């Protein structure tokens, strides 16, 4: 009798090496890596050759040289004697300023329009729809140029400024607002605010523990509002109102005093807010609609009041749907603020990629640093978003 195992010779043999998926994968990946390596090598080599031929030195040495130009709006002291590196910081801060203000106002307007679109008032909901469909379908750049030229072209000259309470002035050079002057006693108000914020966190944790242990509720919102708002206000008045306001005054030709918001910032901000709010409104609408009606009915039938239903059932579930796309809209707003270059608002792109690049010719370094800043913020925000999604995602038991 023959050994049955000898029949195994009929089993398929190992595939030839060029058909083995493992080796094929390895081969293609090595091929890809070498192609990329060659690609980058030739790019770097060409760039170095070209820079040599043009007599441009490589490296970041230029960052410490004096800039030799002025910037329209600076949040930190800057004039032409400061370095290029400083101009980079000014640009980043201006970008962050317009982004922060944009996010604040776009969120407010977006939520308002989103809720208005769900309103049972026919006229209000139609106006919201028309708003959304109009502004999100017009390129942002056109809107920015439009609002900016409207401000510069149609608003009155300084002498004929629109004024509100004789302390806010609107004219073609921007908006003039009273600026606060802090006196030494103001530090106590800041300290009170910090204490209030820390206290609120402690109270919130304590109230939660107590509710879990005993079931008794504590008016957290009221006490937090008291701590964060009432306490600093009280301290502010006890220490004798240590802020004085520098109110702009209309002189014969000019406005004196106060702080000026440049028209570039106003135009850019209006356009960014109107454009982004149209997208946020749609996100808010779909978020609220995503919470099924049954949830509200269930909440009301277990005896929650309508406001508790909103606070404990509808909003938490709607936020889970709203927050991820909302964050990506914030990210879009941040990236879109770079269009400021078109109207001359001194943001990172205009100051650093525009003026500084023209003055120094250090194209590679400057483009890399600018892209790096945007990339860094984008990655940070998407990391936050992933963390938030993981935290908020439904935990199914």
């Amino acid at each position: 009798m023959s050994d049955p195992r000898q029949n195994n010779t009929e089993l398929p043999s190992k595939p030839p090496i060029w058909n083995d998926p493992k080796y094929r994968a390895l081969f293609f990946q090595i091929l890809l890596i070498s192609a990329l390596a060659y690609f980058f090598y030739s790019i770097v080599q060409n760039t170095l050759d070209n820079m040599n031929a043009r007599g441009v030195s490589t490296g970041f040495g230029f960052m410490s040289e004096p800039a030799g130009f002025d910037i329209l709006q600076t949040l930190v002291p800057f004039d032409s004697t400061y370095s290029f590196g400083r101009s980079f910081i000014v640009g980043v801060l201006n970008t962050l300023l317009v982004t922060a203000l944009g996010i604040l106002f776009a969120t407010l307007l977006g939520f308002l329009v989103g809720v208005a679109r769900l309103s049972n008032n026919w006229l209000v909901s139609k106006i919201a729809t028309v708003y959304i469909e109009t502004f999100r379908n017009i390129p942002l750049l056109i809107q920015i140029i439009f609002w900016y030229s409207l401000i510069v072209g149609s608003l009155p000259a300084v002498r004929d400024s629109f004024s509100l309470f004789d302390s806010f002035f609107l004219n073609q050079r921007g908006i003039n607002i009273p600026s606060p002057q802090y006196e030494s006693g103001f530090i106590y108000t800041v300290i009170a605010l910090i204490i209030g914020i820390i206290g609120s966190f402690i109270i919130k944790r304590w109230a939660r523990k107590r509710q879990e242990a005993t079931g008794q509720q504590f008016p957290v919102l009221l006490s937090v509002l008291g701590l964060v708002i009432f306490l600093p206000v009280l301290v502010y008045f006890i220490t004798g109102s240590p802020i004085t306001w520098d109110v702009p005054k209309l002189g014969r030709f000019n406005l004196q005093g106060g702080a000026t918001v440049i028209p570039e910032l106003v135009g850019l901000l209006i356009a960014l807010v109107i454009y982004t709010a149209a997208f946020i409104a749609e996100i808010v609408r779909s978020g609220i609609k995503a919470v099924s009606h049954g949830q509200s009915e269930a909440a009301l039938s277990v005896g929650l009041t309508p406001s508790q239903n909103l606070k404990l059932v509808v909003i938490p579930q709607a936020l889970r749907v709203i927050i991820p796309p909302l964050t990506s809209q914030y990210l879009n707003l941040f990236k879109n603020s770079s269009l400021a270059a078109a109207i001359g608002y001194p943001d990172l792109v205009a100051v650093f990629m525009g003026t500084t690049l023209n003055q120094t010719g250090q194209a590679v370094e400057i483009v890399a640093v600018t892209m790096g800043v945007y990339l860094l913020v984008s990655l940070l925000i998407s990391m936050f978003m992933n963390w938030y999604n993981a935290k908020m995602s439904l935990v199914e038991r």
Partner: protein
Amino acid sequence: MYVTDKILPELPAPSNSKGLIHWLKTNLFNGPFNTLFTLLAAYVLYKVIPPAIEWAFIDATWFAETSGECKLENGDRKDGACWAFITNRFDQIMYGFYPEAERWRPNLAGIMLVLLTIPLFFEKTPKKAWLGGFILVIFPFIAFVLIRGGYFGLEAIDTGKWGGLMLTLIISLVGILFALLFGTILALGRRSSMPIVKSLSVVFIEFWRGVPLITVLFMSSVMLPLFLPEGTTFDKLARAMIGIILFQSAYVAEVVRGGLQAIPKGQYEAAAAMGLSYWKSMFLVILPQSMKLVIPGLVNTFIALFKDTTLVLIIGLFDLLAIIENVLGSDNAWLGFHTEGLVFAAFVFWLFCFGLSRYSMALERKLDTGHRN
């Protein structure tokens, strides 16, 4: 006792539960707050709409030979819009500096594209795939030869002379075509089981999605010449196109990836069990199904790309907005009609984008066959 033996006629519904009054009551004036909102909104509309209509239509000057006809005798502007600015320079807004005698060429290419595309919208057209393939693969060459010229006795026209709405459409159509190609490859790469391919795709996609388009355009216009061997010159339009394609293919890749993930695992396994190779299973089984799913998403990406083409203004190309803003804006014969130009550009873009978004919504409804897993 009273018993009736005939059915009483139906009475009409009470007047407060039907008709105009009822509609007004439930939709506009239910409750004090809503009444307040309605009145407020109506007041705002009353303040905005009539003056806007008056400006844009009633008081407007539609046709004029010179800008003087849009002005009063003392040199001030008339109250209404001066659309004559647009109608007078319409050719330039459409074609930029493209020579007048040769404009039949882009026109012909455009008409061909429209005629070829129309049959795709009908269900019953035979051999749709071949027609689509022709539009995607062969037609671009025909269009390029027609518009650029230099072959078959056609006069060569430098890309520097292209402009206006024509350039906007060319940039966005060529952009989406290549972005679709690279985006699909990137999406497949991101789903690949080869670790190096996968991580390279992820890095590529996340990099371009993380930076604003304007920095990409700056990069391609300033840095691309540095990357190439000395002495090579590179067309300005081509540089911008490269930037736009790199940028947009990352977004397309994410949309396509969504479609790939929506295909149930059984389909992949079935294709493998049939003995199909990777590329065959992708092209015959997976991609046809996932592309159907992602068409609405792709249309939305295309809308974003279309709006983004305006940014080429910043690197000195003359698209629709740049012609109106930079060329006509500094035209001495028609100074001071900036607003009309911007409103017109906004209207053109709005028309395209709104139309496309409606189309994408209709597609979504039509393609939603209800069986998803």
